């Protein structure tokens, strides 16, 4: 009985339905009082039930317990750390304020969603494997599968996965005990399973089938599942805003003494830039989703043709977030690559300041390029050339990064660990994605080819060849730190080569398909694309299967791997000075940073030292 009252998943089992039912009843009562007809309107009722059910879940898991006590003036102990740290596997399934636990929670959850999202891709690739319509899926199901694939991969995988890696690594890297707001951090994690659940539960209500971009007015025709998509995006967006606020404050205010801005590891730099982007851009997608939801559920006329609304306005607001979102999904990856390449090539990052500033430059420029998604949408024609120029310019800071990594490899001592393989593979794949991006930035070329498979190839090279390979690199790089054990290097190589080969086999031919005239988001195609689609489908199944190697490797090695020791890679940044896995409260004594983070090759050079005794602590004792 008491477990049902304590902040656990068990308590969620009754708080979630309770909040949902109360909200539904309130809707019925309000509609009754206002004399609206019909009194029981299922979609309105469900909308409120879902929103308040989500709040109920957070209440159930214990997100508000502490603040509630504070508000009503109960006695609370700010030094109560009973929710901090994991002492058994159960602690990973509760509201936990330890950034390391939250990082692991994030990664495990988002990779589960990665499997689900990948499964949707496999499903619609099997439809595309042979020419002919409605072989495996009906067109309706096909549209749902591709929308789910996009929504899950972007909102509950690609954006939060970097929050997961950042959560684990950043406080360690800057020498902090935890994030600035550990409870907010925990809440932002627990919002994600809600968003994932909402996306998937939309299948009960016909799913959503207007693509992950969900342009009006098509989304007005979709079943109720479309509203759930909007609620899910808003919740996932709130989660990433909360995380970004947390990262910003943590990075700005909680760095260890001596860690000046230009002594920060580049992962910290890129997360700083990313978090600024998230804070300023994500509310726009929330705004667009709210308006679209009101159009669907309240009969407002934001984007409807009949009510003088503008469907193009949705695209403006949506892309004002969703283009910066592309940088949100790749900038932290750039940070990971800088860490991995520098450490495994045993050489300082080439042009540290240029790489750091290029992150900031991308973040700033990222706000001026949103309309390049709309060149063929009837965009205001005076906007086309300025947007083309700014989009092209963003290639320059990206190029700086690529060349700096090449410069880092040159003259180094390159260790071909799995993490480094992924990092080097990333450079190659991302160059392809970047070059096709430059092509697509140019208006006349873009309007001749947009919405085709060329675009699909481009953004999969950027998001899979770019972000995904950086995520793998990061996972292999910090796996020994997180688990305290080494992964199987041989399996890791298998994973890399299979993934890299299958990725290119899957996505490279898509460029040609697009150029030859195959539109995206179709379930059937002309005869000339038959053999290439069959080949792509086979490659995509190999790509899907290759991830299983990683899962096996990581799960098996967590138990049976060789002990990793504190610093298997010889890294200089702060996290490698701790035991693997790190102690519950990270640093026993606040570290002192005495130099740059990548001082490889300098005799006896150190990034930081951990003093024997906390100087402040001594003073306190003396006083």
């Amino acid at each position: 009985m008491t477990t049902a009252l304590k902040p656990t998943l068990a308590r969620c089992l009754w708080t979630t339905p309770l909040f949902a039912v109360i909200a539904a009843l309130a809707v019925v009562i309000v509609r009754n009082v206002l004399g609206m007809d019909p009194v029981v309107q299922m979609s309105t009722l469900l909308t409120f039930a879902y929103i308040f059910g989500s709040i109920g879940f957070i209440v159930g898991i214990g997100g508000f317990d502490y603040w509630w006590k504070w508000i009503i003036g109960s006695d609370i102990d700010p030094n109560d750390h009973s929710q901090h740290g994991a002492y058994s596997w159960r602690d990973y399934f509760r509201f936990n304020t330890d950034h390391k636990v939250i990082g692991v929670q994030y990664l495990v959850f988002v990779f589960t969603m990665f499997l689900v999202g990948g499964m949707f891709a496999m499903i619609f690739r099997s439809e595309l494997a042979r020419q002919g319509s409605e072989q495996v899926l009906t067109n309706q199901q096909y549209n749902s599968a591709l929308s789910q694939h996009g929504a899950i991969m972007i909102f509950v995988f690609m954006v939060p996965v970097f929050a997961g890696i950042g959560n684990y690594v950043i406080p360690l890297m800057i020498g902090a005990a935890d994030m600035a707001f550990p409870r907010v951090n925990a809440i932002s994690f627990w919002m994600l399973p809600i968003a994932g659940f909402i996306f998937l539960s939309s299948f009960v209500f016909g799913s959503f089938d207007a693509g992950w971009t969900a342009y009006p007015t098509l989304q007005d025709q979709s079943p109720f599942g479309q509203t759930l998509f909007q609620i899910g995006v808003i919740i996932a967006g709130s989660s990433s805003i909360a995380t970004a606020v947390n990262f910003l404050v943590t990075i700005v205010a909680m760095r260890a003494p001596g860690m000046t801005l230009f002594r920060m590891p580049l992962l910290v730099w890129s997360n700083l830039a990313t978090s600024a982007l998230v804070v300023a851009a994500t509310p726009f997608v929330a705004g667009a989703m709210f308006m679209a939801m009101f159009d669907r559920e309240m009969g407002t006329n934001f984007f409807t043709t009949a009510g003088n609304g503008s469907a193009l306005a949705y695209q403006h607001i949506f892309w004002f977030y969703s283009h910066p979102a592309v940088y949100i999904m790749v900038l932290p990856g750039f940070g990971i690559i800088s860490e991995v390449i520098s450490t495994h090539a045993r050489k300082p990052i080439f042009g540290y300041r240029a790489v750091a500033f290029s992150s900031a430059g991308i973040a700033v420029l990222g706000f001026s390029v949103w309309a390049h998604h709309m060149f063929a949408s009837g965009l205001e024609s005076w906007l086309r050339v300025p947007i083309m120029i700014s989009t092209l310019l963003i290639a320059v800071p990206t190029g700086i990064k690529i060349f700096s990594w090449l410069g880092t490899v040159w003259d180094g001592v390159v260790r071909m660990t799995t993490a480094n393989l992924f990092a080097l593979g990333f450079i190659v794949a991302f160059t392809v994605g970047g070059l096709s991006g430059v092509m697509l930035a140019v208006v006349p070329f873009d309007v001749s080819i947009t919405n085709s498979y060329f675009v699909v190839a481009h953004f999969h090279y950027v998001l899979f060849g770019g972000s995904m390979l950086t995520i793998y690199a990061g996972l292999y790089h910090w796996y020994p730190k997180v688990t305290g054990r080494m992964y199987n290097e041989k399996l890791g190589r298998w994973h890399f080569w299979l993934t890299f080969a299958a990725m290119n086999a899957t996505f490279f031919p898509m460029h040609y398909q697009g150029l030859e005239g195959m539109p995206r988001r179709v379930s059937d195609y002309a005869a000339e694309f038959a053999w290439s689609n069959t080949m792509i489908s086979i490659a995509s199944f190999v790509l899907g299967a290759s991830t299983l190697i990683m899962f096996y490797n990581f799960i098996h090695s967590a138990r049976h791997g060789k002990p990793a020791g504190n610093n298997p890679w010889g890294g200089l940044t702060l996290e490698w000075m701790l035991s693997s896995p790190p102690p519950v409260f990270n640093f026993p004594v606040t570290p002192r940073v005495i130099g740059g983070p990548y001082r490889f090759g300098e005799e006896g050079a150190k990034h930081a030292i951990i003093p024997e005794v906390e100087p402040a602590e001594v003073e306190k004792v003396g006083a």
Partner: protein
Amino acid sequence: MSATTPDQHAAVPAPQHQPYRTGLDTNVMGLVIFLISELALFGAFFMYYAYMRTIRAVPYPGTFDIPAEATSINTLILVLSSFTCEFALLWLVRRNHWGVFGWLFVTFALGAVFLGLQVHEYMIIGFTPQDTAVGSIFYALTGLHGLHVFVGIVLLALAMVRAARNKWSPEKHTGLLAISIYWHFVDIVWVILFTVVYCLPGVVG
């Protein structure tokens, strides 16, 4: 749960959540960054409003005049409440917790009056959120702001509870400071909203 006994925590040193170097209050910093994010949310709606009114040139539904004069009074009320909210902090310095309570109550009351007048305006304004895109965005902007005022007065009420129990002190009042910053933010957004939505149509047409 059973694994997490307090004893295990006793051995490890307490973590430091306060900054080592900057000396900035992380809570206030976090709030300010969050409010920037909130401003961006309003920005999405303002962007839509500006787009529809200028590039698309969609008029307000019907021949309705925005009640700029009546709303001016409302604006004054909200600006005034920003001052009364600040007075609460001044009285806190004097360690007069009933003074704090009083000023919080005045702020709360002004906020409530503002909300009441806003709802009254909805009733007399003559168009609904369903009346064309501009009707929708008018309600969305004022409604979103109204929601923020509502959250604000709930927070003020909670601050009053703590003030009555004498839980605020000049040394520990981050919560009160946060509420006042939030309240100023709501006020500033209203001034922008008032200028853009209520005054500009009168000037520009």
